[in-house]
């Protein structure tokens, strides 16, 4: 799954950073590496760029760049474990986050088409 396909509030782990040359290097130098946890904090009102939280820093990158970052969505158990809680204790907001991303799936198909058309 691509980072650009996530919905606001989603939390994911990077599996691969794609793209080429300076482009890819810069993303990695900012700490976006395989294994890094990314949270999609929000999307700009005009649909681009996206705001993400990486290692405690708020960065924003364009959809075209986010398209190059492959991620796996963190499920609620993993998120709870991250908080140091037992998996079943706090189902509330983690569940909401994942639901939020599902809602956005159609929108992301549209944005994918747009990204491909962009130079």
């Amino acid at each position, binding site marked *: 799954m691509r980072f650009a396909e996530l919905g606001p509030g989603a939390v994911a782990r990077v599996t691969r950073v794609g793209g080429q040359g300076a482009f890819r290097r*810069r993303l990695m130098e900012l*700490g976006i590496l*395989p294994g890094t946890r990314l949270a999609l904090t929000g999307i700009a009102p005009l649909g681009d*760029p996206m705001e993400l939280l990486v*290692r405690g820093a708020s960065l924003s*990158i*364009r959809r075209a*760049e986010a398209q190059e970052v492959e991620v796996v969505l963190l499920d609620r158990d993993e998120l709870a474990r991250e908080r140091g809680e037992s998996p079943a204790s706090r189902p509330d907001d983690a569940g909401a986050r994942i639901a939020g991303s599902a809602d956005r799936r159609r929108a992301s198909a549209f944005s994918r088409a747009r990204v491909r058309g962009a130079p």
Partner: protein
Amino acid sequence: MTAVAARLGAADGDGSPPEPRTRGAPSGSRLVLVVGNPNVGKTTLFNRLAGQHARIGNYPGITVERRVGTVKPFEAPPFELVDVPGTYSLAARSAEEQLAISAILGLGDNPRPALCLVVVDAGQLARNLYLCLQLIELGVPVVVAVNMIDEVADNPPNVKALAEWLGVPCVATNARKGLGLVALTRTLAEALDAPPIGRAQVPYPAGLLEDARRIGAEVPPAWLGGGPTSVDATGATGAAQTQALALWALSSVDVDDELENIPRGLRERCLAVRAERASDPTRDLDLEIIGSRYATIDAHLPAVYLRFVTNPPKPKLSGQVDRVLLHPVLGFLTFLLVMLVVFQSLFSWSDPLIHFIESAFAWLATAIRTHAPAGAVRDLVTEGVIGGVGNVVVFLPQILMLFFFIGILEDSGYMARVAYLMDRVMKALGLHGRAFVPMLSGFACAVPAILATRTMERQRDRLLTMLVIPLMTCSARLPVYGLIIAALFSPHQRVGWIPVQSGLMVAMYLFSLLTTLLATAILGRTVVRARRMPLLIELPPYRLPSLGGTVRVMLERGLDFLKGAGTMILGCTMVLWLLLSYPKVGVGAGVGASTPGSPPPVRTPTAETAIEHSFGGRLGKAIEPAIAPLGFDWKLGVGIIGAFAAREVFVSTMGLVYGLGDLDEEAKPLRQRLREERRPDGRSVYTPLVGLSLMVFFALSCQCMSTLAVVRRETRTLRWPLFMFAYMTTLAYLASLVLYQVGHHLGL
């Protein structure tokens, strides 16, 4: 090269003891580079340390600002601080990004530093230490300032543990409040005497080290001189430094890079290694280099904190504020409000100050005129010099106001949000979201707007923005449009339900917006092309802006404008004044005498005005054949020449052409004259079509020497202002030509 190879051989352990090598700065260098990521409070810290002594210069060969300041510690000799532009990494693809490594190693015309002060954000240690590790790998003496320590008061990093790991002194600071600065200054002074070389090491995979060794043989010896101090007896630091430089070259050199002064051998070796590894699916050079560094950081950071959090959440307050300021509706409303304030301040609130400056200079000129004996010298002083200085100073209110607001917006963190909100729009133009505020300012005045492009990081974006800003309808065009519209169009005329007069004004704004967008798109794809680089906007936590720092930057900018662009504006004003005042009537052969080769006047003047007799008047007549196809006569030609001083001067120049003396804002007698002006056959000279053609000419042409002077100042070359003048004048000429000729043939 052989020396390096020998040293490498020694490090590999061929038995012979390597000679101790003294690296670095010529003895006595007390230059400290301030290095760090963007948004870590580097400039604030610099200002705190260097006090009031900062001087602005330029990095050699590149239009990046270089600030130098002097620090005077209590019980040690003073030393110099130099600000290096904020960067996330030393790896580079462009000459601009290469600046950091050149400054650190003292390559090219850069003086060799004695020490690097790395400023890191206490709240973003992992990413900030990435840059710090690169410096330590290079074997450069480093002191670390862990800044903004107040923002992590609930879980502060242990500075001692950090220093223990890195092997260099680390000092906690809060530059905003001025805390920790005494300790930092003392540490820097001590480090200058005994340069601290870091011991933190990154365990790279063996395959990568083998590649680095191959490239290391091609690293030029001059690069190794970087950083001062002597090497330990084993020479290990020299080998480590060669390895670090090889890794730098490996991450930087690529087929499409724009780096300068990379030796051919090194470049070829890097490309060869890259090509080999690209075909190997088990290898990923960039990931190996960057991943190893981050792995080291991730392994050591937990020891630096009492309670380590890998992925801290966004600061609570910033998150809440962003929920409003980045909201699709509320966010845009706030944004519009903030931009309205910025724009209004430039467009109208600066007006009283501008008027005050203008009347002060007018008063001064009058005072001298009444008290000094008449003559050429008096005229030169009152009209040339005082007028010229006035022309420079008159920009100050807008420049100061704009930089005041920019300072507040930058400091608070809102500027990054502006870029974030507007990026989608600016991206369509091939620009960065940060271009928005300079572009908006262009609607008030191009001069402060061009200065405001300094907030943009990339030189290419900055240049493109500068080149198109003068196309926007600045406030100096309004009196010109006002005169033409009022003189040549009736207030009662309507097209449909739209009154022609106000409709035309709106149309001119839309026209300039359209041409700006088109020019940006075209120039961005031709003259100033960009490689595709990922956009990156860091959204720093909201912080309270510091008034002192803002005022300081504002004054610095104002002063820089006076010094940098002032002389050129003054000189141009004087040349223009001479052109339009000399030779005086009665000095030459008399009325009606025109320069040889000038065309016969359209209608025989009954009484020649002083301006007609001047060089400027003759020039106007000389260019008449060229501008006649646009519908302009020589009088408009003189007006256009005069408008080069500033567009609104067109109105007063036309007043002089018609012998109407000084005109007020309304210029009523001039409007009357323009309406009544007839050709010999009785037709009107200034038809509405001529008016339209003239307005289009003013919309597109670069009739503003101050703009050109500022572009020269900001780009440090004559090439760009000349290009700007050429492309805008050509555009204006062609557009007016087409408009007038088409209109003429349609019988308008």
